[in-house]
Each structure stands twice: as C-alpha cells, then as structure tokens.
C-alpha cells in the first residue's frame, strides 16, 4: 500500500494522545486510590490531558487531509453498524470530548473526574481497538488481518504516550516520573516484541491469491504483459509504495533504532530528566512514523496482481 502521510500522522498522533491519557489517568487514578491529595497530581493530569487533547486534535486535522470531501466528514458516523472506520470516527471525538470533560472536572478537582476519566480511558481503549480494527477488517490485506495489529496499535501508542507522560512528569518534576520512565520502557519493550512478532508473521505469510486465481487460469506460468493503462491510474498509485527494498529496510531500521532502542537507552540512562525524556519521545515518535510507514508499505494488496506491467 502507498503510505498516506495524513493517515500516518493521524494514527501516530492520536495513538500518542491515547497513550498519554491512559498513562496519566492510570497515575491519577492510582494516586487518588492511594489517597494522594487530588491537588498534588492535578497539574500533571491537567497538562497531560490538554496535551493529549492537542495531539488528538492534530490527528483529527491530519485526518481531514486524507478526505476528498472533508466538509462531509460528519457523514462518516453513519456507518457505525458495519464499519470500523466509522466506529473510529465516532470513538475519536467521544474520547476527545470525555478527555475535555476530564480536564474540566479535574481542574475543578471535582470528584466526578474519576468517573469521567474512567469513561475517557475506556474510550481510549475502544479507540485503539477501532483504529486497529480499521486495518484488521481489511481481511484481504493479510499483513494487517491479525489481532497483532490491534495489539501493536495499542502498545505502540501507549508506549509513546507513556514516554510523553514521563517527559511531562519530568518537566513538572513530579514524583511519578521514575515510575513512568520504567512503565514507558516496559511498554516500548512490549511493543517491540509484538511488532516484531507481526513482522515475523508477515514475512512468513503463505500466499493466498495468485495470478492463477486472479485471472482464473491454472497454468503455472502467467506473466502480465499489459495492465491496460500506460500512464498509471488510481490503482497504480494507491496500492504501491513505489519505493525500493532499501526504503523498507530503512523504515524497519528507523523503527527499531529510533522507535525502540534510542528511547530505551535514553530512558534507561537519562535519569528521568526532562530533556532526555522529551528527546526520547521525539525520537520515538519519528521511529513510530517510520513504523507506520512500514506498516502500509509492507501490506501487499491482492489487487496488485493486476497491475504489474505496462505495454
């Protein structure tokens, strides 16, 4: 598939937003359960939530660039019964609204904050599921059609959110910063494992559709001579990344190095400082953009069987 930059940004940004919220809400909730005075964690919770909101809003903006008719975006809610994309479109504003509610309640130290936050957290989880399922549900793209896709979206989003949370905590010099650093490292490691698993799975995926099934001719040797349009078409643009094997390898390296190893090292040896944490987050984010690029690029769409040669 051709990686659409808007979709890459959309998913990485809201993923980080979701992860950030889930992390800060976990800290907030555990804190309040432990009886820590609400006021002590307030700024962390509020600043974090606002940032989460911003990330989601940025993601939302990015998503509009992907649409041919953004002014009709509201229609996208209509298909929620069958479409994960529609569900995502419903879940994202719902999540954002509940985060906004949480911010206000938390700012006012309202006791309702916990319940609103719980709702927002559940929506964040739902949103992860929706986002992942958007891809999983395209069954014909077998690289995506795996529960690992949902797990990866969730874990990588959480990991980046947690790193960002650690950075915020570090800026605020909050007591939770060390814990968050550890949490972020754990999530990064988990994400690395599950994403690694999906890479291994994808490399071993057996072929399902072939030129033989595509045109219904059983002969073992079939070559396309002409795809019917020499100047290209939507089908030659949308489903091909148009890059060589190098680009894929670089993306993978980018993900492993920037998305995992560098942040882990920075977090592990950075003394939870504001600077190292935020550098860790930035590199991690770039790494995740590479990961998301790879996610699209490695997806082999069966339609490509029909678009192999011009003449």
């Amino acid at each position, binding site marked *: 598939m051709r990686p659409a930059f808007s979709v890459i940004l959309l998913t990485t940004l809201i993923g980080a937003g979701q992860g950030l919220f889930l992390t800060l809400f976990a800290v907030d909730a555990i804190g309040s359960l432990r009886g820590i005075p609400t006021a002590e964690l307030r700024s962390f919770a509020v600043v974090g939530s606002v940032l989460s909101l911003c990330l989601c809003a940025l993601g939302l903006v990015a998503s509009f660039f992907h649409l041919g008719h953004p002014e009709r975006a509201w229609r996208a809610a209509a298909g929620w019964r069958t479409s994960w994309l529609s569900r995502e479109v419903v879940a994202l504003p719902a999540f954002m609204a509940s985060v906004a509610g949480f911010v206000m309640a938390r700012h006012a130290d309202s006791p309702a904050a916990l319940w609103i936050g719980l709702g927002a957290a559940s929506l964040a989880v739902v949103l992860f599921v929706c986002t992942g399922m958007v891809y999983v549900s395209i069954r014909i793209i077998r690289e995506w059609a795996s529960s690992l896709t949902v797990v990866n979206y969730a874990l990588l989003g959480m990991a980046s959110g947690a790193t960002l949370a650690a950075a915020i905590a570090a800026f605020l010099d909050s007591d939770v910063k060390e814990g968050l650093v550890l949490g972020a490292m754990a999530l990064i490691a988990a994400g690395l494992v599950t994403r690694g698993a999906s890479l291994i799975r994808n490399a071993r995926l057996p072929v399902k559709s072939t030129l033989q099934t595509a045109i219904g001719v059983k002969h073992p040797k079939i*070559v396309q*001579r002409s795809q019917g*349009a*020499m*100047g290209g078409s939507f089908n030659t643009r949308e489903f091909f990344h148009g890059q060589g094997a190098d680009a894929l390898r670089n993306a993978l390296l980018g993900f492993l190095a920037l998305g995992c190893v560098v942040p882990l090292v920075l977090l592990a040896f950075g003394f939870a400082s504001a600077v190292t944490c935020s550098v860790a987050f930035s590199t991690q984010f770039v790494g995740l953009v590479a990961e998301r690029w790879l996610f699209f690029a490695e997806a082999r769409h069966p339609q490509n069987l029909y678009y192999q*040669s011009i*003449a």
Partner: protein
Amino acid sequence: MPLHDPIAQPLPDAQTEVKTTTCYMCACRCGIRVHLRNGEVRYIEGNPDHPLNKGVICAKGSSGIMKQYSPARLTKPLLRKAGSERGSGAYEAISWEEAFSLLEKRLGAIRATDPKKFALFTGRDQMQALTGLFARQFGTPNYAAHGGFCSVNMAAGMIYTIGGSFWEFGGPDLERSKLFFMIGTAEDHHSNPLKSALSQFKRNGGRFIAINPVRTGYAAIADEWVPIKPGTDGALLLAIIHEIIRLGLYDRAFLARYTNAGQLVNVDEASDEFGLMARNAAGDLINPLRPHNFLWWDRKQYRPVGDHTAGADPALLGAFRLQDGTPVKPAFQLLEERVRDFTPEWAAGITGIAVDTIRRLAHEMGIAARDQKIELPIAWTDWWGEEHKSIVGNPVAFHAMRGLAAHSNGFQTIRALAILMSLLGTIDRPGGFRHRAPYPRAVPPNARPPKGPQSVKPNTPLDAPPLGWPESPDDLFVDEQGSPVRIDKGFSWEHPLSAHGLMHNVITNAWRGDPYPIDTLFLFMANMAWNSSMNTSEVRQMLCDKRADGEYRIPFIVVCDTFQSETTAFADLVLPDTTYLERHDVMSMLDRPISEFEGPVDAVRVPVVPPLGECRPFQEVLVELAGRLKLPAFTAADGSRKYSSYTDLIINYETAPGSGIGFLAGWRGKDGEKSMRGEPNPRQWDMYAANNCVFHHHMPPSHQYMRNWNKGYLEWAQQVGIRRDNDPIVIHIYSEFLQRFRLAAQGRSTGRQPPNHLRKRVETYFDPLPFWYEPLEASVSDHARYPLCAVTQRPMAMYHSWDSQNAWLRQIHTHNYLFVNPATAMAAGIADGDWMWVESRWGKVRCMCRYSGAVEPGTVWTWNAIGKASGAWNLTPDANESQKGFLLNHLISEELPPDGLGHRLSNSDPITGQAAWYDVRVRIYKAAPDEPRQTSPQFEPMQPLPGVVRPKSGWRSFFAGIGGKW
C-alpha cells in the same frame, strides 16, 4: 436512501438529439448514432440498423468525442511566413479566399505549362473517386492514394488471380466456415465485422488457426498459433499446395470448370508464344477486348477442344501436342511441376515451422474442404449455360493482410494463397472466400493507366485514369526509353503492376529530381513526415532541402489535415480540414464502398455538428478549386461552374452523360425510386440521412455466390454498371499476363521491352506461377550482422498516428516498447524494461524492451505509429509518445541499396511497388548506462500552430454541460 440518484439524467432539461452518420475513426466505416446534448457530442454508439457493424463499435469509434474536441485541431488556413525556414513552424493565419487565390494562381500556371509538376497524393482517405477525378481532369499523372505503401500486393495478387481480394472487396465467410486460417493480420480494415465474425465462428465450434510471427489480438483467441519467420509465407503456402496436389486433396471439378487449370499452355521453348495460352483460332472470343478462346484437352475424347465445350472435361495433368505439333500442358500440370520440389521439408527450413505441422495444416484444410461440404438449395446457372441445382461450398476460409502484403515477395506469396484457395474450391462459395461489390472484376480490371508522356498535356485532362491495371508491357506508363512518366515511377519497368502507385517514393524522387523535379506537392490526410514515410529522419531533411539557387527542392508543399501532425510542420500552406462529424462524405460504389457479401452497400456521412473555426471539408475545397481552375468535368458548357458544392456534385455527377450512374447507388431517379442506376435525385442526401446514411441492395440468393461465373449475376452487374462486360471471370492459376512481361524482358516479344538494367529483374519476378524468393532487402543483407526481423502491428485502440491527440485512446497506448522474445533478449543481455538499441543498416533507434513469449525468437516487433515527434499533435514536448515512444520507420529504407551500377530502386515489391515495410533486418543491443532515458532520434519540439491552443495540464473532465470544466 441514496442522495445521488444513480439513474437520473444529469441535465434533465437539456436539448438532446440523435443523428446517424458514418464513423471515420478508421477506414472500416461503421454506422454510428451520435447523441448531442445542447449541441455537444456526448455519446457515439454503433448503429444497430447498420449492415456493417450491426450496433457494435470499437475503442476508436467510442472515442470520437475526443477527436471532435481535440486541442490539436487546426482551425485556420496557414501560410508559412515569408522569409521563415520551412520546418521552423512560423506561420500566419490567412483567409480561405487568400488560400484559394494563391492555389488557383500557382496550380493554374502549372496546368497551363506542365501539369505533371503538380503532385497530389492522399493518405488514409476513402474518396479516391473524387481525388482521382480531380487529378485526371487537372492532367497530372502524379496522383495516388496510400495503397502503394499499404496493401497493393493484397489487392493485385488476388485481383490478378481471382478477380477480387481481401480487404473491403471480399473476405472470409465465417458464418458458414468450419476452418479458418488468418495469416499476417493484426487488426485489419474490416475491424469490427471481423471481430464479430470471429467470435461467432468460434462459438459455432469453428477451428481458427493463426499464422503470424506474433500472437496478439485476434490471434490470441486462435485455437492454434503457428509462429512463422517473416517473409517466408510463400514457402509455406507452396509446400501446402505441394501436399494438397500430391494427395489429391484439391477440388478437381471446381478447378476444371472455374479456373484456367485445364487451359493449355504453350510449352514450346522455341516459340515466341512460349508460356502463353494456346488459343482456339476458331473459338468464340466471347469478349473481343479480352478473348476467351482457350483450349482444353478433353480427357474423354482425348483431344483438344475449345474451353468449356459442352460435355468436355479438361485433363488437368498431362502433356499433349496440338495438331500443329505444339507441345502444350494444362496450366495445372505446370503448377504441379512448379511445386514438386517445394516439399514440406524444404519449407520447414525456410519458415521455421515443423514439417509435421506443415503437412497437418495441408491435411486439415484439404480434408475439411473435401469432407465437410455445404450445400445450399439455391439454383443458379453458370456463364456457359449449365444449370446447377445447388450451391456447394467447401468450408475452409482464409484471411490475410499486410503480414503477406508488406514484403517485397508479397505479390507472388499472395498469388500462392489465392491459388491455394482456388485449389480448395473456396472462391465465392459458402464457407470460403466471398466477394463484395463491385467485385469480382475482370482479371485484371479494365482501367489502364496512360501509355506514355504524350498523355500529359497542358490544360488537358489525362487521356486515361492515372491508375489502372496493366495487362501487358503496352499498358505501361513509360516513355520511348522505357523510363517512368510518373514521379513515383509507377507503371514503369521498375514496378509494372503498381496499381496503387508508390506514395512512399514521392518525396525522395521529387527531392532527387528523378525522373524530374516537381513544383507543388499536395498531401491530403497523410502523415508523410512521420509514420507513412520510410526513412523518416532523412525524408524530413529532404522536405527542407534546398537547391544551389536557394529554392527548396520541392518548391511548394500543401498539407490538408485536421490536426497538427508532424507533416504540417513542413507545409508552406496548411488547409484545416473538418472532422468526420462535420462534413458530407460518400463511401461510393465508384470507389471503395462498404458492400456486404449479399449485395452492394454504399454509405454517406452527413454533418452532425458545424465545423470548428474556419475548418472546411476538403471535399468542398477540391470542388471549389476544380471550379476555379475550370477543369472540364467541373465546368458547364458556358464556362460557368458546374457544381456549386460537393453535395451538389455528388447528386448530379454522372460517369457519362445520362449514364444514371453516379457516386451513390441508393435513392436514384427523380423521386428516389430507383437503385443502382437512375437519374440524379435532388433529395438523395436527405434520403440517405433518413435511412441511417446507408444503402443496401439485397441481391437474390441465386446471385450471391459463384459470381465470377454466375450468369444471372454477371448480367445484372453489367446492367447496373458494376462491370463493363459480362464475360466470366476465370481464375488465373497460371498468369499469362505475367508471362507477357517475362517474354518482353527476355527480348522475345515485339512490343515494349525493359531497359537493360531491369531485364533480369523483370524476367525473374514475372513468373506466371507463384514462387518464393527471399525478400529483396534480406537477400542483400548481412544476416550475421542483422540476425533479426523487425515488424510492426496496428493496435486495435489506435489509428496510425492520428489518435495520439485523443485523450482517452492515448491513455491506452501512451508509448511503445520493442517486444522481444525473452530468449533473444537475454542472449543480448537485455532485461525486461531496459533501454536498448535496435539497429538496421539504415539507422538506429533507442527504445525500451518488453519481453514477450508471444513472438517468434527471430522477430522483434512494436506497435505501429505510437511514437511521435515532440510537440506534434499538440502534446506537451515531454509527453510519453515522444520521450518513450519510438517509430520503427527510421530503420526502414524507402530504397534498396544501390546495385552495381548505382541504380537505386524502391524498397518495394518488384511487381507491384508495394512498400516492403516488414523486410527490414535488425540487431539489438543494450543501451549504455550513461545514455539518456529517452528514445532516439529526437527532433526539435514543434510549437503550437496559430489557431491551436495548448491545453492546461492538471485534472479535467469532459463535461462541458455542467460546470464547463473543459
């Protein structure tokens, strides 16, 4: 509930209209219905009520809108700016009046002094009845259409044998056939009907065999593909004939009665009549202009008798002596002797086809023809008065086109094919080959070219049509020395039977001043600076070349085109023509109508939209010019103009005063009540327009078959003026006419003889029986250096060069590749998609390689005319057509290498002058890595001409009604 109603019409209040006319996105000429919305063409569909295409339409026809609204359209007459260089593209727009008076003056002066200095050559048009009339009236012999570089071998090879040919004049009866051989055909002229017929044939369970070095298009759906080395079909066909005769698989009864197989040929080497038919001095001449007093050897009485003597049966084999001792043999005997050594083993070595396959092909056709006979209960009487209760057919059909025609051995190869078809007894019979009116015609047809320089006189029409069918050396158009009179050297000893002229040599000859320089070259609908010229790069230079005195070697060039083609760049005067949707036009019985097997069909075009800008139909331009020049046929007795317009001419012109025969056969007579023949009808155009623009005369079934010898048909044909005579058209298995030229070359006849340097050539190729020889260029080429053949094919979705301005079609064929068998390419180290060179002894072209397993390894090929010159057709200079597309023509020479004495002969068939496009030999190699990723050669980009606007890039949709986004 959907918001967008998928059924609603987008402009419910629009004015809509449907008009019928005839397509001219190609020369097939299907009936179409053009849907107009608020005056704009919105949809073009096949007319279901049209006999040719019965409602279907092809990719080109469906893209007519994009021709109509093409930004490459010329809109104004243009004159090259004084002082500017030809080819530089500097023009000023002028008025039609200026254009006409300029032409009137120039052409008038030429006509008053030396009319042959005006040359009119036309390309892919189908209006030769009018252009030919104009040229003849003008008095110039220098006229021809594109046939000489197209398929004259097919026309001549078959017409000189069976009196008809493939192409629009006849074809395979696939409705009834059981076995079909398609040889050297990719897209064909009869494109839609052939597609329909092929599919119907296959669905009926027919067996389809394609013989072609390449498997594409039609051949794709063949049951068997027989790859063959280009230029070798003659060997294959002769070996098949060998096998058919050896096994006795021929239709003896058919041969005996309907061909000259049983006619006795003088085989007395010492006689001046050697190789000519023995004549029956006492016999009935039948037609004094073309005596039919031949002899048979009656095998029952064992003695010679007049041909077709009642009760006689000619011996087909044997050797006999006439009473005076003259040794004679039946023509068939000579054929048998001819093919005796042409064994399948011999042909296998030449064609690359396995011996078993050659044998099997022969057996399949012989057995299918013999054992699967069709009998139709249609009674008919043959010319000699025998009544037949039924029509019998041998259901084996053939079709062949330029794969045979476009080789310098094509004429003899096609004669072999026509003879094979006759051996199988498949001529004008159900399931075999069927004629289309006005064919069959005499072998050869009656028109003869003028006979010498005396025919060309100032201010006088030619005393004969500029093109015709020579029967003997006396019919050649040569001077005392035997030198050509025509600029293209047509009908000279170089190409005696060049029935369609040699358009491909006109520019070179005129440039060289050989046989003489000309003044004005008028090109209509021919892209002579590009795809229809051989040796394109040099021809482009010749067009701009100057004499020592600074004058252009070809002083004045007029181009009439609809689009900014490559050739417009070299014009001194550009005349903007209309599109086929903007003009009147006829597909006339006098010319090349669209007849069906069942009867004559002619058709018209009527305008469905007004002309763009100042475009004017060329038809009108010709009539206007003829009027201004006061050409006799266009001038009334009082000196005034006889025809006010083209439409007026079409209605009122008669072939002879009161003949009742004119351009159109339908709705003649004062009230349109007569067909084929009748007085002019002033409402004839309206009547065509009201009847789908087509006229179909249905003949009774008894006239639909065996037309060469069908008394009823022949009498009717004479009566309606399709034929001059009504004598039978006997198939020429053995061609006495060819022998006459051979005798002249051998110095054994009294009439004209070839100049010495051509004697050997004429003697060799004018063989009265078919034979195979290596194509001329190949025979003088170094096969080790140039091991491969290079050919082209027409893509179904593109017409020559003229569809690259078509926004939809060019998305299908945007550029071309050289298709190479993977084994051949890999041996040359060329990968799929690589840039490579293809080189002949004449030049080289850089292009891209595409592997294909559907091509014989000794052949490389590409689509014809996809490559374009940069900026031509108003494409942007970086368009794929010029950057990745290429033209094979740069590799093909219009002339053969000079012979020992420095004579340069056209690269054509030595008999007909048919351009030998597919003879070229090439080699291939990989392009160096540092070479530009661009085809070579490249030319200076053409700039848009005045009146032509280069469109903006970006997304656009043709939907002028709503939004007007175009």
